[in-house]
């Protein structure tokens, strides 16, 4: 299934992507599964997505936890804890 993935702040810099379209294998259906899938791309990806750093996720502009389901057409975003204000 096709999804769009966005990266922000520290994470954007680490993976050198701000946005990409991914055609996911059909068994990747949660945020956790997507994180594991991305962590296989190389060392910098593994460091971010192996669970040792806090990486927040949003689906379609709403904060979600890692158990959230991903469906085709979703916009998934990964970012560090927010620091506005």
């Amino acid at each position, binding site marked *: 299934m096709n999804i769009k993935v*966005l990266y*922000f702040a520290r994470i954007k810099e680490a993976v050198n992507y701000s946005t990409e379209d991914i055609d996911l294998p059909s068994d990747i259906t949660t945020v956790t599964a997507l994180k594991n899938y991305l962590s296989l791309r190389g060392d910098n990806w593994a460091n971010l997505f192996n669970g040792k750093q806090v990486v927040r996720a*949003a689906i379609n502009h709403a904060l979600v936890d890692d158990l959230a389901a991903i469906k085709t057409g979703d916009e998934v975003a990964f970012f*560090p*804890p*927010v620091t*506005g204000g």
Partner: protein
Amino acid sequence: MSVKIQIEDFDLGLELSKLRLASPSIGAVVSFVGQVRDVNDGDTINTLTLEHYPIMTEKALVAIESEAKTRWNIIDSLIIHRVGTLQPCDQIVLVAVSGAHRGEAFHACEFIMDYLKTSAPFWKKEATEHGERWVEAKLSDDAAKTRWLNQLK
């Protein structure tokens, strides 16, 4: 209720006057202005750059304002948050709340700031005398938000 995300500065006096004069039933306006400090964690700050997640930012801030309006008897609210590169003493954010009475306006304004700090997708990067670094989220900000979860009003 309104939300503005913008690169340019805002005119604090003008914004507060508009909010205040919108209705003669307003008796109280509480506002918070955040500005860039010249020193953070012991290092001199040259610039502060704010990144955000467009669309999600607006949605998050509108949701926070709606929640405040549900919890307290307020008349109106305004959030202006700047993005881009700022200098020390630049204004970063304005949160202003109008109401008939002061107590509810105070609480709603502080609530909006506490939620903004922990729920709105902004990130800060500091250029210091020793190079660039991302600002870390603070546990004290999570604690400030949690306070509101544990009280009815």
